[in-house]
């Protein structure tokens, strides 16, 4: 929106124009001599004083997947939202810790453009051309809801509830709005898709090693560190509201090291930048581990108590030595160490099968090294410790050998290893730069190994802190109760769903990484769900409907061209609920106008801090928009109405063994009228979670509030005056980790892990499938949160106004490409056109496009995912101990970056 001059300003401007533009000297002299009083002379200053006025301030935030969770003031003038400014009133955690203010960013500072901008969806729209053509018919809410409800009923009648698919990401940014669709999906028995694994934000190494989805320190905790490694993480760009804590940590004496292939915007303030070859991070981490083990720089008492490194492993079958190996009816979930005092294998407490729920070793004195003989039910077997196996496995990861792999000089590797081990507390801040690779689990596990060996996990200022995506929803119990009001749900890993229904060609068939045999086994054994369930012996059936809200599934999907080609035709109904016309909306059948973040009530929280604050409506929803809660409530009501009219009010959900009653659907949705309002739904969340019980929604409007407690979902308490850092319950209270062994588990004895040689953290080079010279890098950018704000003109004007790729100068010169040229990026999967930026800070062989550009920002509608397939790693399909499928906790991640491309100039 360009603001118009008001009448008074316009008259002045017109007057100035009439007098101006004369460079007549006589006039100049006359002007100088004009008598003037200083009070009159300065009266013009009122012009700007009057501009800085408003009628009211509302507190809101942005329902955006950025982990920012920033509280903002929204200024309203003459009934119109004028601008926003950070509320900057988070209470300090303690006087010693820098506060969070003024939390916000460049994008939050122009969110108002989404309220008034031309991309706004104002009315219910029905497709009037082909999908994606951009031709629409404006229809009434009643018509839209009736047609959608009828189609949903058709699908329920003809197929079943698992043919209805619901996708929405990131409840933390607006849990009520998420819960709206989740609630209707649950009541109908529809499929609820994951997002954290699908976006490849889930670090699989965390469930593998710690049995948690992700647990990280809040950003304020960084200031307690003395040594911070930014590893594949670029907080100056991707964590704008938090970056100050890093540089404040530096002013408190921390050393900051940045490890990244390019000299990125966070590296510029680091004490040391280490340029690494893309995708080789585990090689560097394991070379550091090699030095730490060889030079005995590890924390021996810590690893004995907190990790599985002292546990015994059978050398004959590579499996843990279990109680069931030694005694009849012994547990599969109890494990042994070799006790120095008694020189015998003794059970350790804390494992899943152990009755002692503690990590306290008592009188046990486990050894870390050596080989021992144990009498099992099958006879004598040789056993050793996980540590011994690790030590042997690390032998080959010398700094010299790994220097060749990762491009970091051996002397630098040694220095990093020693400094990291000897400066405490030390932490790794981990990002998508290392998590978006095919072997992301190995990257994670190798780095977690470093922080565990050095005793940094479960310490403030220490640990492996992964910040990608916004998985953490603090008042989780309240949100779950609102979003999924039935005990049985159809949760689906979206990676697998998109991969099979999109018939993704990943070029892995016939290679060692062909996922199909593993997928079939995993689905057949019930390790991973796959909806719709196959009928007549088929593994799966085709989905019929996709309902998307609060997200841009299509635009951000890896392999989105293949999804449009293969998945889209299978879908008889695509509904998008949105305040703006994003790519998914553009390719939908119906688009329903949603309220923006400044037009509704909701809550907002993040894993980067421990405060909660609200979204509130600065104005009523504009045009015909409604909040997500009201849209799904209206849809529930309409389904009920149409079901009654059609005489189809009940159906039996065989898998769940329940009768679904459509004749009372609205009452079920609102819990008999208790949850009619958005605000009531928000209060319901607050009331039903330990973190927020007792907080009234209206209190949050006055000031953000810190969480009052942390439920069992977390690994530490929220303590007044102290920062939140994970795993303190394990180190301070000796609670076991939620893993099979109850310890930080580096050894996974699932047969697939053993078959692939990944029972321990190891290094495998990045994939070499496509025969192209450049690695395609699609990191998170400064001007966008995924696709949000990519289309906003205020942001576009501050970069190049169109999609841009970053090229090393030599790579560009070889191809005759100059800065500002238009170029084509291509591989076997697809191609795209962008503006070329010559970027001296990139190594040769890497080409970067900060992600999120909408399909409709490219002339041929091919975006950054056109060159990317979905690739599924077998180890992420298993079921093992603590590794069971759960929504956004365990499932394949799909990865974005392990592809190669080339680039050429377009004329």
């Amino acid at each position, binding site marked *: 929106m360009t*603001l118009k*001059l008001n009448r008074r300003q316009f008259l002045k*401007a017109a007057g*100035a124009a009439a*007098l*101006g*533009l004369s460079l007549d000297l006589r006039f100049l002299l006359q*002007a100088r001599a004009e008598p*003037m*009083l200083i009070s009159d002379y*300065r009266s013009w*200053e009122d012009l700007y004083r009057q501009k*800085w006025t408003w*009628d009211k301030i*509302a507190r809101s935030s942005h329902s955006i997947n950025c982990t920012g969770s920033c509280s903002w*003031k929204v200024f309203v003038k*003459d*009934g*119109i939202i004028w601008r926003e*400014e950070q*509320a900057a009133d988070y209470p*300090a955690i303690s006087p010693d810790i*820098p506060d969070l203010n*003024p939390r916000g960013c*460049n*994008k939050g*500072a122009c969110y108002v453009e989404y309220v008034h*901008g*031309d*991309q706004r969806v104002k009315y219910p729209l029905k497709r009037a051309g082909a999908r994606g*053509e*951009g*031709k629409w018919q404006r229809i009434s809410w009643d018509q839209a809801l009736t047609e959608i409800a009828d189609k949903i009923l058709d699908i329920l009648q003809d197929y079943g509830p698992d043919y209805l698919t619901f996708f929405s990401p990131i409840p933390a940014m607006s849990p009520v709005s998420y819960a709206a669709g989740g609630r209707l999906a649950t009541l109908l028995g529809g499929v609820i898709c994951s997002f954290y694994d699908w976006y490849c934000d889930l670090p699989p190494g965390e469930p593998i090693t710690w049995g948690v989805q992700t647990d990280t320190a809040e950003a304020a905790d960084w200031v307690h560190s003395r040594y911070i490694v930014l590893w594949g993480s670029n907080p*100056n760009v991707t964590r704008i509201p938090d*970056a100050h804590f890093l*540089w*404040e940590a*530096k*002013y408190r004496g921390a050393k900051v090291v*940045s490890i990244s292939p390019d000299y990125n915007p966070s*590296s*510029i*303030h680091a004490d*040391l*930048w280490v*340029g690494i070859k893309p995708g080789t991070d585990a090689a560097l981490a394991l070379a550091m581990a090699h030095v730490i083990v060889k030079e005995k720089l590890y924390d021996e008492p810590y690893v004995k108590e907190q990790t599985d490194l002292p546990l015994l492993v059978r050398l004959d079958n590579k499996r843990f030595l279990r109680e069931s190996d030694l005694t009849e009816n012994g547990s599969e979930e109890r494990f042994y160490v070799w006790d120095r005092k008694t020189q015998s294998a003794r059970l350790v407490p804390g494992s899943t099968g152990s009755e002692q729920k503690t990590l306290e070793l008592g009188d046990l004195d486990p050894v870390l090294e050596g080989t021992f003989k144990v009498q099992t039910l099958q006879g004598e077997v040789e056993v050793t410790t996980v540590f011994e196996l690790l030590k042997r496995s690390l032998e080959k990861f010398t700094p010299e050998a790994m220097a060749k792999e990762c491009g970091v*000089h051996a002397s630098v590797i040694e220095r990093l290893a020693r400094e990291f081990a000897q400066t405490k507390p030390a932490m790794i801040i981990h990002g998508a730069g290392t998590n978006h690779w095919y072997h992301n689990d190995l990257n994670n596990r190798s780095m977690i190994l470093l922080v565990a060996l050095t005793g940094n996990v479960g310490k403030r200022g220490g640990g492996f802190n992964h910040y990608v995506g916004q998985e953490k929803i603090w008042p989780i119990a309240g949100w779950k109760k609102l979003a999924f009001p039935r005990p049985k749900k159809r949760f689906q890993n979206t990676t697998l769903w998109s991969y099979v229904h999109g018939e993704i060609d990943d070029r892995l068939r016939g290679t060692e990484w062909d996922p199909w045999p593993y997928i079939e086994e995993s689905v057949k054994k019930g390790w991973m769900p796959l909806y719709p369930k196959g009928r007549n012996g088929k593994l799966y059936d085709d989905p019929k409907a996709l309902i998307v809200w609060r997200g841009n599934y299509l635009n951000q999907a890896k392999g989105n061209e293949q999804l449009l080609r293969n998945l889209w035709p299978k879908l008889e109904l695509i509904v998008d609920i949105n305040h703006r*016309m994003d790519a998914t909306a*553009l390719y939908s059948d119906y688009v329903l106008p949603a309220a923006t973040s400044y037009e509704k009530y909701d809550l907002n929280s993040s894993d980067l801090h421990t405060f909660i604050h609200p979204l509130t409506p600065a104005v*009523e929803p*504009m045009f015909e928009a409604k909040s997500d809660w009201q849209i799904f409530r209206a849809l529930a009501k309409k389904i009920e109405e149409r079901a009654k009219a059609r005489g189809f009010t009940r159906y039996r959900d065989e898998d769940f063994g329940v009768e679904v009653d459509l004749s009372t659907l609205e009452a079920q949705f609102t819990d008999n009228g208790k949850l009619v309002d958005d605000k009531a739904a928000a209060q319901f969340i607050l009331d039903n979670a330990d973190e927020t019980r007792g907080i009234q929604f209206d209190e949050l409007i006055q000031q953000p509030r810190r969480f009052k407690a942390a439920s069992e979902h977390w690994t530490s308490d929220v303590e007044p005056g102290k920062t939140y850092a994970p795993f303190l319950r394990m180190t301070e209270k000796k609670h076991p980790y939620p893993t099979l062994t109850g310890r930080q588990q580096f050894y996974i004895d699932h047969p697939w892990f053993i078959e692939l040689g990944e029972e321990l953290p190891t290094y495998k080079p990045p994939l070499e499938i496509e025969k192209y010279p450049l690695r395609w890098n699609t990191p998170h950018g400064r001007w966008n949160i995924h696709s949000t704000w990519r*289309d906003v*003109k205020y942001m*576009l*004007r*501050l*970069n190049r*106004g169109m999609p841009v790729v970053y090229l090393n100068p030599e790579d560009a010169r070889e191809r005759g490409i100059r800065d500002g040229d238009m170029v084509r990026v291509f591989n076997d999967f697809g191609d795209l056109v962008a503006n070329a930026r010559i970027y*001296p800070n990139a190594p040769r062989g890497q080409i970067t496009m900060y992600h999120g550009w909408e399909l*409709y920002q490219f002339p041929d509608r091919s975006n950054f995912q056109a060159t990317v397939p979905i690739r599924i790693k077998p180890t992420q399909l298993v079921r093992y101990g603590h590794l069971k499928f759960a929504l956004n906790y365990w499932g394949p991640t799909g990865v974005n970056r392990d592809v190669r491309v080339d680039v050429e100039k377009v004329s």
Partner: protein
Amino acid sequence: MPVEPLNQEELLQSDRQLAMVLDLNKCIGCQTCTMACKMLWTRYEGMEHMYWNNVETHPGRGYPKDWQRRGGGFKDGRAVKGDLPPLDDYGRAWEYDYQGVLFEGKSPNIQPDEGHPRWGPNWEEDQGAGFYPNSFYFYFPRLCNHCSRPACVLACPRSALYKRREDGSVVLNEERCHGYRFCIEACPYDKIYWNAVRKISQKCIFCYPRVEQGIPQACAAQCVGRIRFVGFLDDEDGPVYKLVKRWKVALPLHPEFETEPNVFYIPPLSPPRFNEDGTLNDQPRIPEGYLLWLFGPRVREALATLKRELEKVQNGGRSELMELLQARSYKDLFKLDRPPNPKFNEYACASCAIAQDCTSPLKARTAGAGLRVLARTGRG
């Protein structure tokens, strides 16, 4: 209000000087400051290309293009001729046809109305100079320097520019301005802009309406990197005095322009370079010569002080300078010598916008005709 005659001397005098320090070692180039300023002051017609506050990547040609080589200011006390940058050197504020592409199916993609842009206010973002792996760059936020010897004030034949007596902010009287643009030529920092719709020049006002109410400038108050300190230069208890006068780590940009800026910068440190064999070299990546060009010879002492104090805290010691730069409390960044107007934090009651039976006086003013007009026309 005292009645005084207006004269040139009067326009240059101020009783106190409000100043700003920007810590380049904390600047993350996020441009929240740029947006804060844009959304508050320069969204009006004719101002689309203006960024009173901008952030550019150094080394680079900047905004407007090559501003450092376009003249203005003084040399040995004599005015240096400057020029008027054409609009293309600022970059055109691109518009996009969202309506046609997204709602009418007219073409496949939104694109800048300029076609193939060749320049913009942040065109060289993150590029810098040098060769991998020893390339270098850093972010440089710029606003009007509110100089003590403002070339713009002296150049204006209309006496339309002046320093505000109470805080030394340099402002441009938009009612007196006749659009001669001598000020644009005179400013060596190119921080005055031409409004082709209103036919006047416009510039940063140092957010005087906010400062008068005890609220820091939008670019400073909204700086999420917490790099900006604001205070009066004569206030010995204020952060600005301490950084500029006592610790001498904050320096004016291009002091050789002789305009005596009141915006100061803490110069950037940088990580070490690599030798050809991949081993580390202890030399900083940013060549000293580049920093000397920007800040003059005093930069050596400033960098040495920063390094010495950093080493103190790295070795477990304490440093008053590091405490100051850390600024634990957001409020410590600013000292305006007057309490903030509480109205600035007055939140509307929860149900204000939607409850029908609300009795708040705010209600009448917010649910008025504006919304309905907006809804009917469908235009923001």
